[in-house]
């Protein structure tokens, strides 16, 4: 019986086009059907063939939200992978490879080498594709799993391609399984049974599904890594769910189309990455000025400019804070994980509708392209949908309607086009209550001031509409780790490692960036012994923001900007290092070169 601590990481490496996704997906499905948790991270390049892809699949009995620190099993599909990664395996780990084509190099004592003579085993020279399936079979044995699980999975996966293809794949997989039984030693702890079967989703799928649950009826996008998964899910589901999905000529068009659709009363959303978001920003200001609620998602990648399209970073905080010219109010939120991203979408739409303003979600490649297990019963498919003060029906007697009526709350009831008796014009120029322009024929400082204050007043107390961050973990810890967005999960694991090393730490995970809970954050951090900010960028964007909002400066900083996400030990090492030298900046070394 398992002690509940099963925690296993395997990696598949090769070049683009070698079919890494397929064995990865097959394994993922087997794992979640057993009710085990999954966190995968795919390191790749912006290339369709060639390069080096390294898919890490972490499997655990408890929920894990990072790809972890160690590697238990490596499947090298090419020599390059072997050269890069074998040296990083520790005692007890296993390396599988096609011995017809790949030779191992130096490795630590206790690493089990598992050569697979693919040509002999399959009686075929088509080693290129067969080696994945042979290896899958061998992995099943190493993991202590019945071959039938793989057989079932292959049946489902290849059913559409016909019986011959299924049979051939099962034959090849069985050859690998049998060879492993005869030659390799299984891992001491076989993969246990978990609880109820789980589902799998990526963060992008979670964002798209969150939109669907929130009642999004218009989605537009221009393809841009790492945000394109949202478009794919929306396009795939558009007809079933009655969602208008459009791929547009550029992100300027995307954003303005979304604002136009939102103006009709449809909930409208778009996703992009930093470069596309830059093109969208003028429209975000337009949505604020016209007071049209809509949601813009920026899935951050390493920048600036084209940057590293397939690598992660948290470098767009200041871009989001400064998105669009002028001085205006909006929401900015950075979800902590895939499920949180899902829940954030309907919540943000309700807020945007309530205050008639744009909302920005800052995701990143790590959340959006990672694939995670999820318990379907944890997903709220029917979140509250609150459209705010929306007028969709009227009569011809509504002449007194003022679109931008100067109300005590600042919120003016919003009539959608097509409503009788509420005819009005919305304008990106400054305007009065009746939407008459204050910019061209006349300007009026008193009206301008009133309009600015009306829009700003909507946000009085807005911070109380959202949950403030709270310290999680042991009280009175030596160190409080402060992160924002996707670092929450990996910081949790770093805190566990620190505890094992005798350092008590807790976490303040920031999700809402605007409005910012300055009072609560100040209270939490001034009562902390010391705090260290962890973020995936060079300059410490959040550290500067925090200082601006609270006046507080951190004891130390752990920053990573090499394109790869934090592993738990990077943070634990950083904390120990900083404690030993009284603060400063720690930049972890990325051991895995991908």
């Amino acid at each position, binding site marked *: 019986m398992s002690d509940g601590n099963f925690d296993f990481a395997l990696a598949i490496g090769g070049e683009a086009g070698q079919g890494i996704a397929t064995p990865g997906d097959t394994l993922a499905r087997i794992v979640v059907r057993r009710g085990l948790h999954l966190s995968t991270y795919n390191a790749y390049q912006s290339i369709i063939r060639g390069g080096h892809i390294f898919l890490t699949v972490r499997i655990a009995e408890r929920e894990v939200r990072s790809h972890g620190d160690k590697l238990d099993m490596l499947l090298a599909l090419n020599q390059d992978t072997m050269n890069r990664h074998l040296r990083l395996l520790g005692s007890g780990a296993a390396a599988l490879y096609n011995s017809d084509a790949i030779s191992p190099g130096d490795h630590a004592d206790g690493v089990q080498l598992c050569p697979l003579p693919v040509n002999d085993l399959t009686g075929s020279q088509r080693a290129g594709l067969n080696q994945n399936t042979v290896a899958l079979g061998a992995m099943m044995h190493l993991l202590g799993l019945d071959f039938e699980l793989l057989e079932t999975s292959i049946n489902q996966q290849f059913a559409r391609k016909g019986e011959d293809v299924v049979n051939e794949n099962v034959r090849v997989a069985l050859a690998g399984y049998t060879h492993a039984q005869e030659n390799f030693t299984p891992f001491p702890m076989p993969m246990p049974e978990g609880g109820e079967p789980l589902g799998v989703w990526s963060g992008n799928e979670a964002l798209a599904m969150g939109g669907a649950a929130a009642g999004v009826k218009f989605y537009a996008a221009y393809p841009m890594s790492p945000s394109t998964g949202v478009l794919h899910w929306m396009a795939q589901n558009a007809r079933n769910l009655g969602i208008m999905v459009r791929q547009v000529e550029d992100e300027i068009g995307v954003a303005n189309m979304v604002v136009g659709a939102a103006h009709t009363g449809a909930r409208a959303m778009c996703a992009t990455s930093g470069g596309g978001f830059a093109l969208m920003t003028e429209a975000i200001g337009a949505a604020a000025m016209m007071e049209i609620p809509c949601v813009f998602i920026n899935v951050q990648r390493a920048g600036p400019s084209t940057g590293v399209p397939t690598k992660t970073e948290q470098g767009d905080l200041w871009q989001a804070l400064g998105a669009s010219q002028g001085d205006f109010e909006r929401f900015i939120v950075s979800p902590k994980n895939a499920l949180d991203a899902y829940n954030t979408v309907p919540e943000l739409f309700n807020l945007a509708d309530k205050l008639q303003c744009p909302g920005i979600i800052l995701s990143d490649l790590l959340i959006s392209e990672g694939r995670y297990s999820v318990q379907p019963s944890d997903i709220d498919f029917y979140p509250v949908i609150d459209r705010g003060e929306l007028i969709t029906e009227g009569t011809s007697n509504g002449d007194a309607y003022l679109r931008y009526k100067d109300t005590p709350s600042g919120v003016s009831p919003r009539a959608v086009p097509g409503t009788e008796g509420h005819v009005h*014009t919305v304008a990106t*120029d400054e305007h009065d209550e009746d939407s008459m322009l204050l910019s061209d024929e006349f300007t009026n400082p008193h009206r301008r001031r009133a309009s600015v204050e009306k829009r700003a007043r909507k946000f009085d107390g807005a911070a109380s509409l959202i949950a403030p961050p709270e310290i999680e973990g042991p009280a009175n810890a030596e160190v409080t780790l402060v992160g924002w967005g996707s670092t929450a999960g990996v910081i949790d694991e770093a805190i566990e490692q620190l505890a094992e090393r005798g350092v008590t730490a807790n976490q303040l995970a920031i999700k809402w960036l605007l409005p910012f809970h300055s009072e609560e954050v100040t209270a939490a951090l001034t009562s902390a012994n010391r705090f260290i900010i962890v973020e995936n960028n060079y300059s410490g964007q959040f550290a500067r923001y925090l200082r601006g909002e609270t006046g507080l400066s951190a004891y130390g900083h752990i920053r990573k900007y090499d394109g790869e996400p934090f592993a738990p030990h990077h943070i634990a090492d950083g904390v120990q290092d900083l404690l030993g030298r009284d603060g400063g900046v720690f930049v972890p070394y990325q051991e895995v070169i991908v």
Partner: protein
Amino acid sequence: MTTIQLTARDFKGKVDPDWCPGCGDFGVLNSLQRAAAELGLRPHEIITVSGIGCSSNLPGYINTYGAHTLHGRSLAFATGVKMANHELTVIATGGDGDGYGIGGNHFTHTARRNVDVTYVVMNNQIYGLTTGQVSPTSRIGQKTKSTPFGSVEYPINPITSAIMNGATYVARGYSGDVRHLTELIKGGIEHQGFALIDVFSPCVTFNLDNTHNFFKDRIKKLEDEGHDYGDWAAACEKAMLWGDEIYIGKFFHMESDKESLTALEPVLRDGPVAKRTGGLTEEQAQRIVQRMM
């Protein structure tokens, strides 16, 4: 309930235009108001979407729903409106700089998609609101504040561009002939698909080359010459003429061979998405879960 026939006067906005006296845009506004009334439309059934520029102030002067959006973005915004609520009559208005310059990419793709939007461009061949710089339709040699020695760039031809990009109703009007322009706009609104009506709308302040007199002396109507608007090649040939004879009228109209985006988009078969409230049904949620497992 009896429907009262509205007149152009009923489409008059709350404020008077701030255009210069003699501006061509008055004739365009007048034609739009007449077209709306003559088609029996009601103000709340229409939305007029514009960008930025003198002519883009038009939504404020017409009694319909309006959106005075960003510079160059009227067609993107209008496409969003139309695809979210296709029951609305969507009219986009603006100038040559707004539509063919900064908004050129959207112009190309809105035509290609054949979105059911009527796009009325007040083409004065100059940037007026910024006090007179060269525009995408300024003639080569034209002297403006940004080309004080004469422009050395060739202009875009909106008519041939629209036809090549896939627009299915392409016309050119002249703001000095309101009756004629009204009919072109009515045809564009009734047409199912993207309609461009490029209008010579002289800027009396900053373009002293392309004046009312310039056009009055040269303009000829296609319909007077038996032009076959189903013939795109003939349409392009006529549209390229720029000299002693300049044609206005309906250059090109593809009446049925190419469906509008509204007609082609299956998601709209159950009505406008803007009127669908709520999130997922239980059946939809179950299907999503099945796919995740």
